[in-house]
C-alpha cells in the first residue's frame, strides 16, 4: 500500500506539472507567432513520439552523465511524467481553447478588454470545462506510466512486489496483487474525474 501511494503521488505531481507546461505550450502554439508556434509544435511531437521508458532512462542516466544534473529516481520519474504528459496536455488545451466560440473573443475585445484579460476571464474559464474529461484520461495514462518507475529502483508498488517475489517466490500472487491495486486505483481516479466533470459542467 505504501508503494501504491508513492505511485499516486508521483502521478499527481507529474500531472500538475504537465498541465502547467502543457497550457504554456498550447498558448505558444496558438500565439500566431512562428517563432513560438514552431518550437511548440516540435516540442509536442517529440514528447508524444518518444516512449516513456526510453525517456525515463534518458532523463535518469543520460542527463546525469552529460550535465552532472543527477536526479533522484523519484525526481527523474516525476520529470519524465511531467514532460511526456505535457505533450498530450498541450494538445488537449489547444483543442479546448480552439473550441471556444470566436465570437466570445470578439465580444470581449469590443468591450475594451485586452488580450490577457480576454484570455483569463473569457476564454480560459470555458476551456477548463471542456478539457476535464480528456485531462482525466491523461491522468490515468500517467498513473499507468508511473508503474514503470521500478526500473530505476523507485520503491513503488511494483518494486515492492518484485521484492516480495524474490523473498517468497510467489510471482503470481505478488504481481496479481499489484494488478488489483492498479485496477482499483484507476477506478477510483475515474470516479473522482466524473465528480470533477459534474462540478465543472456548464449550469
Amino acid at each position, binding site marked *: 500500500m505504501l508503494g501504491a501511494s508513492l505511485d499516486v503521488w508521483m502521478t499527481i505531481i507529474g500531472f500538475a506539472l504537465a498541465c502547467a507546461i502543457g497550457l504554456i505550450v498550447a498558448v505558444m502554439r496558438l500565439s500566431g507567432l512562428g517563432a513560438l508556434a514552431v518550437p511548440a509544435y516540435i516540442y509536442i*511531437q517529440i514528447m508524444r513520439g518518444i*516512449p516513456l521508458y526510453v525517456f525515463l532512462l*534518458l532523463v535518469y*542516466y543520460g542527463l546525469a552523465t*552529460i550535465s552532472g544534473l543527477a536526479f533522484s529516481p523519484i525526481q527523474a520519474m516525476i520529470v519524465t511524467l511531467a514532460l511526456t504528459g505535457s505533450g498530450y496536455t498541450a494538445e488537449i488545451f489547444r483543442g479546448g481553447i480552439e473550441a471556444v466560440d470566436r465570437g466570445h473573443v470578439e465580444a470581449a475585445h469590443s468591450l475594451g478588454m485586452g488580450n490577457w484579460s480576454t484570455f483569463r476571464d473569457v476564454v480560459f474559464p470555458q476551456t477548463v470545462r471542456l478539457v476535464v474529461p480528456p485531462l482525466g484520461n491523461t491522468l490515468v495514462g500517467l498513473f*499507468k506510466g508511473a508503474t*514503470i518507475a521500478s526500473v530505476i529502483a523507485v520503491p513503488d508498488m511494483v518494486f515492492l512486489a518484485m521484492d516480495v517475489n524474490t523473498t517468497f517466490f510467489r510471482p*503470481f500472487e505478488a504481481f496479481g496483487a*499489484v494488478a488489483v491495486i492498479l485496477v482499483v486505483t484507476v477506478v477510483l481516479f475515474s470516479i473522482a474525474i466524473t465528480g470533477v466533470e459534474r462540478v465543472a459542467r456548464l449550469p
Partner: protein
Amino acid sequence: MILVSLSAYSYDWSVVPRSMPVLAQGLLFTLQISILSLTFSLILGLGVALCRLSPFKPLSFLAFGYIQIFRALSLYVYILLLYFGLAAVIGIKLNPLGASVTSLTLLNAAYMAEIYRAAIGGVDHGQWEAATSLGLSQIGSFFAVVLPQAFRIAVPSLMNQLVDIIKDSSIVAVIAASDLMYNTIQLNGFYNRPFELYFTTGLIYLAVVAIVSQLAVGFERRLKRHLA
C-alpha cells in the same frame, strides 16, 4: 555549474554508428511484435466489441469487465504477471516473444473494442432500418451494411492505436525480449554512453512514430476520397 559540466562532458557519438547493426536488429523485432499484436488485437477487439454489443446480458457484461480491467492495467505490470506469474502458477512458460505479443494483444484489444463500439454506434440508424426493410436479417444487415461502414469510421483511431503499440512495446525489454529498447540497454552496458545511446533510440522511435502517423493520414485521405 550545470553549464560548466555540460561543456566538460566529452560526447562520443562514435558509439552510435557502431551500435547501428544491433539497434536495427532490435527495431526489426519491435516492428515484428507491433504488427503481430496489431493484427491479433484488431481481430480480438472486434470479437470483444461484438460481445459487448450483444443483447445477451452475461456476454455483454463479461466483455465490459474485460474492457475495464485491461484498460486499467499498465503493460509493465501485466507483462510481469503474465511472464513470471503465469509461469509459476500453471507452468506455462512463454518465451519473451510470445509473452510480448500476448500481453500487447490482450491490452490493446480492450482499446480496439471501445473504438469499434464507438464506430458501430456512429453508423446512422437509418442504415439498419433500410437494411432490414430490404429483407436482410439482423445478423446479415450487421455484417453486410453496418460493419463495413463502422470499419471506415474506425480506421483513423485504429491506426493511432498502432502508434501506441509501438511506443508501449519498448516495455517488453524488461522481460529480455530483444527489442530496440532492450538492445539499447545492452549496448549501454557495453559502451556506458547512456546519453548518446538513449538519445539515438529516442530519435528512432520518433521517426517510426512519425512515419506511421503519416501513413495513417494518407490512408485516411484515401478512404475519404473513396467515400466521396
